[in-house]
């Protein structure tokens, strides 16, 4: 036992002792089909709280979006919820259940969709299907190549770490290994893989293809950077030789400016069909200078990072977590996943597609259109 190990044990023991009973009583919802409240073990403070059956009948559709705003938007999208993939219509109603269990979905051409399935602990295989204009889908067919070993639950909190390029010939996965940040590109025709990696003490997430060969992602190479300089959007040329992730160039460093503040954070972004701009979700901090934790999507120049139009406010709770931001083919409609709930921005107007989830089972994990 080294001195460091001793100090660790002592520090853990002392810190643990700062937590003493009583603890907050625990409440857990009982089986969803049983609409009454049952105290399970009162003495242990394990109280079972039932969700009302009526609340579970409708898994939550928000009021319909103004039809005029929907003109030209995709009629259907593919979602992942509770491990199930399904096709839903513009109001979030399920049209088709896709067989199998999946954790993430991606599309590059808005017609061919790729699904990631965790077949065993941390082992992923990928499937391809085609969505027709009438909402029907083909049977998922497996993308060639060996299963990909990642961390268990790799896409649970990072659904957009998985992305398909515009022509559907490449999939990308970005993830954080034990000490390395990695970007893995998979050829969907041959299954061939190319991995770029770099040591990091920071974080990598949120993959998006700028074009068929350029992969962008959010990267904080140094864990301290995020607190000092905000988010970096890096761009990797996947057609270039080599395997060093540090060859990725910085596309955008520091926060995107919204209004007066330059202290915002980007959680998700997507490239627009015009090839010149990207749209990013931007969240203001809560601070003494008027920041209220509100979120927006803003379209900015890919080159300068400067806004090229107005920003649409997302009417979500302060500091909501936006996991998904997907543009449609026109660039006028955006699909979002905020705190497990689907939302959309149509021609600058925000609306919820689904109601707030009442349980983990109601939470969407991923969506694409």
């Amino acid at each position: 036992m080294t001195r460091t190990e001793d100090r660790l044990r002592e520090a853990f023991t002392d810190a643990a002792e700062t937590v003493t009973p009583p603890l907050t009583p625990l409440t857990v919802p009982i089986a969803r089909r049983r609409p009454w409240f049952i105290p399970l073990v009162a003495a242990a403070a394990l109280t079972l709280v039932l969700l009302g059956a009526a609340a579970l009948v409708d898994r939550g559709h928000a009021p319909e979006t103004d039809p005029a705003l929907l003109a030209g938007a995709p009629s259907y999208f593919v979602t992942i919820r509770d491990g199930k993939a399904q096709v839903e219509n513009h109001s979030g109603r399920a049209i088709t259940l896709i067989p199998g269990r999946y954790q993430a979905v991606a599309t590059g051409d808005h017609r061919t969709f790729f699904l990631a399935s965790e077949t065993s602990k941390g082992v992923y295989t990928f499937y391809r299907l085609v969505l027709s204009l009438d909402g029907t889908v083909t049977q998922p067919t497996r993308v060639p190549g060996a299963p990909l070993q990642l961390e268990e639950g790799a896409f649970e909190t990072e659904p957009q770490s998985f992305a398909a390029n515009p022509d559907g010939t490449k999939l990308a996965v970005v993830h954080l290994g034990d000490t390395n940040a990695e970007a893995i590109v998979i050829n969907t025709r041959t299954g061939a893989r190319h991995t770029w990696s770099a040591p990091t003490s920071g974080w990598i997430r949120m993959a998006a293809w700028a074009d068929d060969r350029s992969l962008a992602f959010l990267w904080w190479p140094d864990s301290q950077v995020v607190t000092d300089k905000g988010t970096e959007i890096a761009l990797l040329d996947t057609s270039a030789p080599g395997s060093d992730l540090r060859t990725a160039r910085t596309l955008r460093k520091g926060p995107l400016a919204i209004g007066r503040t330059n202290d915002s954070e980007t959680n998700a972004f997507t490239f627009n069909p015009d090839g010149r701009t990207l749209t990013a979700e931007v969240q203001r901090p809560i601070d003494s200078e008027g920041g209220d934790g509100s979120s927006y999507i803003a379209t900015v120049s890919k080159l300068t990072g400067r806004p090229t139009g107005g920003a649409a406010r997302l009417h979500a709770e302060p500091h909501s977590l936006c996991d998904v931001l997907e543009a449609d083919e026109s660039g006028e409609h955006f699909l979002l996943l905020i705190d497990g709930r689907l939302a959309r921005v149509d021609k600058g107007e925000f609306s919820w597609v689904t109601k707030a989830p009442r349980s983990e089972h109601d939470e969407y994990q991923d969506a694409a259109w």
Partner: protein
Amino acid sequence: MEIEIASFGRPARADVAPVMGVETLTALFREHHLGLVRTALMIVGDRATAEDVVQDAFVAVHRRIDRVSDHDRMLPYIRATVVNGCRTVLRKRRLALRHRTHEPPVWSAESAALLGEDRREVFVALRTLPHRQREALVLRYYLDLDDAEIAEVMGISHGTVRSTVSRALASLERKLGEEA
């Protein structure tokens, strides 16, 4: 080893399993609630969040109770759920700027008064480690789990556990100025 889960929609022991599962879960809750909160505290840094994470973990396991057929494996399963919950919290903290100035109590300056400067120094050094290294150290040196148990909780191989702990200790020694 992972907890054995029956096929989705087909409880392993249709009528018996859920009742037994709830009893096991209740017993685990009685015995391990405090310890799990303390474990989460070491990873996320504050008691309120640690309690939330543990509550969410029990809720999640309870929801799937009819699919848990090996009740002996329920504790590792809950531990893994707690660690995953901590990861989600840490990720959200990274993304949310409200935590830019947030100092979780365990490693804040105030904790020096409570725990002493030496302890605080350790937690400040721990905070700079990648979160997986921090998790591994908490599981090894607070919960006294062995490589296999840590591997199960973290979802990584035994070899990766050893290398992660080793790298974490080396890094910690450097930060604490205790290099051999």
